[in-house]
């Protein structure tokens, strides 16, 4: 079975190639081909899983050697695929959710002029993502890492006729590349200090003795910087909301289910480094928590269907990093898996709504859609309940466990903040639900239900969203947790804290409270939310604009010589980060145009520059001699 594991990434690659060159001729078959390949890949992945399960728990690590990739001097990088519980879990998520979304896209992208190209990009993305999760060494991982970045760039800008899409694509590319650069330096550092890029050689607890822990802190933080960029955490989160300009299936696959979780995977994979340096772990925890709450509040202020979901994704990712920071790696992965299900479900339902309303995404022009498209409404409802954390849906278990660990870990404050976050997520999702599907009809055109090729995938994902919880019923003894334990280690039960039952009750109450408030304001009709918004215009604007931090910083950005501060500042706000990127760009532009003027076109000036160089070199020689 493992012989053919290389097929899992290879199949999408083949699909990408075929669709790239023959996409036009294939016509509608392009989508069917792409989806078919993904389904096969998923089946293979299941086969791998079955094989792995047959092995005893501590032997579940197989490295499939495909040959040497680079080998020069002391530097050898093998093209190895690593098959262990962690990579298999990710592999299943990517292929499974990916396959469903591919099928959905057949309907969604129908009639697009670049139909074939779309599926070619999607397949290519899956290939790179699988390379990323299956890599056995840092360089191969980095290859996948850059690859998914490139695909997301191509897919966000897929409708490049829209200037917004084009700029969003460029922004996503540049912002994530900031993180990537740090990550590359980190990888170089790994090779330099630890002497190898191979996971098996580097990612073992005994590595601690090789170098002082400070080194590991630096490495871990550099890698985490890459994760922050990819997973859109504060302060590099601002590209994700804009990325919603891309086609909705792209948002579902890349910007909710898979690519953005690559950061979580990276940290979980390299958790050894993070544990050796406790500092890095704390940084992860703080960043995660801050992001989780910050994004949740921002989500409350958005009026764009997809932007709400985008902020909610950021917030959920924040929860994952929070869990990682608490060393609850398995819990983080559990949330990752369930989130992949229900967030993809939400996005695809949103896509179905847009499909029904001819591309409308403004909540103010929706409402009462449950009549026009009951099935979509139901599916969206399932997703909403899941994310809100209502038992027995999958989201409940995942979030509940993280809260439980938080409480046990002794970070009381952290627990309370996270709880508030849970309340907020229930609130914004119910707001979304009621605004879109209940209340009076504010649509401008007759909505209609989507074709089965789109609704069936919804149903599939809904099943996952509902029953995903059974994967890990409890923090310690859950199936998934047990499966992942060999890689991520057992969770050490924190001492004290409230008993599990109490905690569960509390978190459920938080969720229900959120929903209740949401219903009261947006659903019941008793409160005129429009008037409310007008009355508290200040508050609303405050949230909609990400706490006005933007303006505070944009003013401080103007002040010259504060490039560093300005950078940190700008990261909180998208307009400013663009400003910053452009600012840097302009700085270079300026320097460049200066340098360019040196090129006067006059031979004698060239000769002068030449002679200046000569003199300098001879000054050096003179110094060297004396």
């Amino acid at each position: 079975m493992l012989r053919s594991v290389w097929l899992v990434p290879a199949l999408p690659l083949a699909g990408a190639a075929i669709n790239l060159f023959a996409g036009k001729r294939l016509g509608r078959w392009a989508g069917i081909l792409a989806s078919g390949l993904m389904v096969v890949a998923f089946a293979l992945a299941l086969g791998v899983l079955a094989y792995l399960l047959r092995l005893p728990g501590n032997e579940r690590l197989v490295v499939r050697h495909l040959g040497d990739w680079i080998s020069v001097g002391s530097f050898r990088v093998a093209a190895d695929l690593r098959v262990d519980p962690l990579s298999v879990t990710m592999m299943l998520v990517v292929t499974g959710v990916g396959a469903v979304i591919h099928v959905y896209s057949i309907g969604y992208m129908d009639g697009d002029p670049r139909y074939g190209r779309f599926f070619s990009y999607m397949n290519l993305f899956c290939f790179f993502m699988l390379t990323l999760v299956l890599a056995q060494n840092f360089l191969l991982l980095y290859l996948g890492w850059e690859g998914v970045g490139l695909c997301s760039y191509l897919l966000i800008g897929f409708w490049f006729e829209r200037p917004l899409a084009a700029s969003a694509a460029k922004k996503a590319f540049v912002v994530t590349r900031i993180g990537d650069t740090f990550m590359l330096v980190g990888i170089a550092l790994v090779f330099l200090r630890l002497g190898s890029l191979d996971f098996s050689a580097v990612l073992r607890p005994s590595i601690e003795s090789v170098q002082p822990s400070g080194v590991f802190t630096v490495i871990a933080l550099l890698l985490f910087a890459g994760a922050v960029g990819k997973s859109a955490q504060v302060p590099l989160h601002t590209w994700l909301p804009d990325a919603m300009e891309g086609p909705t299936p792209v948002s579902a696959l890349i910007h909710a289910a898979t690519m953005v979780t690559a950061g979580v995977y990276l940290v979980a994979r390299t958790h050894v480094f993070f544990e050796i340096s406790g500092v890095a772990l704390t940084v992860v925890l703080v960043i995660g928590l801050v992001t989780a709450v910050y994004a949740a509040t921002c989500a409350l202020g958005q009026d764009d269907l997809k932007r709400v979901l985008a902020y909610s994704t950021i917030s959920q990712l924040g929860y994952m990093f929070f869990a990682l920071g608490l060393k609850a790696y398995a819990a983080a992965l559990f949330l990752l898996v369930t989130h992949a299900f229900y967030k993809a479900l939400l996005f695809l339902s949103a896509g179905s709504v847009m499909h029904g309303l001819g591309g409308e995404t403004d909540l103010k022009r929706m409402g009462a859609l449950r009549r026009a498209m009951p099935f979509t409404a139901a599916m969206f409802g399932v997703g909403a309940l899941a994310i809100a954390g209502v038992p027995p849906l999958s989201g409940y278990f995942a979030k509940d466990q993280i809260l439980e660990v938080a409480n046990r870990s002794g970070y009381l404050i952290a627990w309370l903040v996270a709880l508030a976050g849970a309340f907020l997520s229930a609130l914004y999702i119910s707001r979304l639900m009621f605004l879109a599907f209940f209340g009076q009809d504010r649509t401008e055109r007759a909505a209609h239900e989507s074709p089965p090729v789109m609704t069936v995938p919804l149903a599939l994902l809904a099943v996952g969203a509902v029953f995903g919880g059974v994967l890990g019923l409890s923090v310690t003894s859950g199936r998934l947790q047990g499966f992942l334990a060999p890689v991520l280690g057992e969770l050490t039960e924190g001492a004290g804290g409230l008993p599990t039952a109490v905690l569960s009750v509390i978190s459920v109450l938080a969720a229900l409270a959120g929903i209740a408030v949401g219903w009261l304001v947006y659903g019941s009709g008793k409160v005129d939310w429009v008037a409310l918004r007008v009355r508290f215009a200040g508050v609303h604007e405050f949230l909609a604009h990400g706490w006005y931090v933007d303006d505070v910083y944009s003013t401080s950005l103007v002040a010259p010589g504060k490039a560093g501060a300005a950078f940190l500042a700008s990261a909180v706000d998208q307009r400013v980060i663009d400003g910053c990127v452009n600012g840097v760009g302009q700085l270079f532009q300026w320097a460049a145009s200066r340098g360019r003027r040196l090129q006067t076109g006059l031979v004698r000036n060239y000769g002068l520059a030449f002679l200046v160089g000569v003199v300098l070199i001879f000054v050096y020689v003179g110094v060297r001699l004396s």
Partner: protein
Amino acid sequence: MLAQFLIHPPIQLGPIGPELVLTGTAIVVLLGAAFNPRIGHSTLLLVSLLGLAGAALVSIGLWDWGGELTVLAGMVATDRFAVVARLILLGIAAMGLVYGYHYFRRSGEARAEFYPLVLFATAGMTLIAAAADLILVFLALEILSLSLYVLTGISARLSSVEGSMKYFLLGAFSSAFFLYGVAMAYGATGSTRLSAIAHALAGQTGSLGLALAAVAFLGIGFGFKVAAVPFHMWTPDVYQGAPTPVTAFMAAGTKVAAFAALIRVLETSFQPLTLDWTPLVWTIAAVTVVAGSLIAIAQTDIKRMLAYSSIAHAGFVLIALTAAGQDGISAALFYLLAYALMVLGAFGVVMLVSARGEGRTSLASYAGLYRRSRLLAGLLTLFLLSLAGIPPTAGFIAKVNVFRAAVAAGHWPLVLVGVLASVVAAFFYIRVMVLMYMQEPQDDAEPDRSPWPRVAVAVPAVLTLLFGVFPGIVLGVLDKAAILRW
């Protein structure tokens, strides 16, 4: 004294076989065209390509040369380094010839002299890669330079003429410095033979002062040829002025040849002085990388932009040179190979986009290229990605190798500079991509649609990808070739 000097060495022409074949072919083509003015250019192209193929075969035959390390009184080295460098150069020349044949036919400036000139230049390049004596290095350098001056001015366009004059004046200037360097080396050690110089310096018998001066002057001469800051000023003008095929040929060829010679000189003769010249190379590399990447941003003409990027790449190869020994050499070789591929490809696309002559080389005329020709846009994207060093392209592997070698040699800050510079560089490469894919075409000028040139441009593309995904294919060979025997 005269007598003992005139004892003539044993004659072994094998190791300069490739050059003999090249010059022979060049002479045949030259006279053929002179005697029969009406001869078809396809014939000339064919003969020239055959000559290149023959030279390639001969050099491959030299891979397992069993005889002396140097022949012809220590003038010519017979190591595998020379073989590999020759093969790369011959490939470059072949591409240049094919481009030129197509280009000049379309621009209606077809001149029979083009083919022999390219062949002579190539002979100079391959000879310089194998030269084991400073006299020969100088002669080979002049052979290739003189041919390139003329090639640059072979078109009647004003910019071409001006470019050739600038190139010539500055080139002569720099070669004077180079020759002075040779004189210094000779004065310091009493010989121009690389091995003899090395021994003299290692034995402390030579004069250190003169030796350092020699390194400096030779470095200046090479610095000019490889376009290292501050000896780079000619590059943008000449690259822009010259006909695009010539630009492609000289951008790739000169750099490979000059670096091959530079590596040989530094790593053999002046190896005893490594500690003295490393800081020099270090600084020049840093300045070159930064300046090249930076100034490229402000360019509005794609040929100039590529010229600056080639300056930056020279800097990266210099970074590899700071890491002495086999490791650095093989990294440099791979980088040169990758660079040659991407620069040939990029200029090939430029040639096809500006259809006839030098019409449309401004960046503006690349807006919406994707609409006009998917193939060309795709190819250019690939080459730009490779130039920017983004996987999965040869450029990425090359950069990783170079950085690794430099880090292993302990040149941390230099690598940092390199990484940052390449991030900056990514800006303007991506800008071109954005132009091609995300903007409306500004004019409806058709790119060149003739099939064969496109195939020719596709060749480097395929190789770029191949070496990017499976660098193992060549790295092994390069490793074997990265040992200088002298």
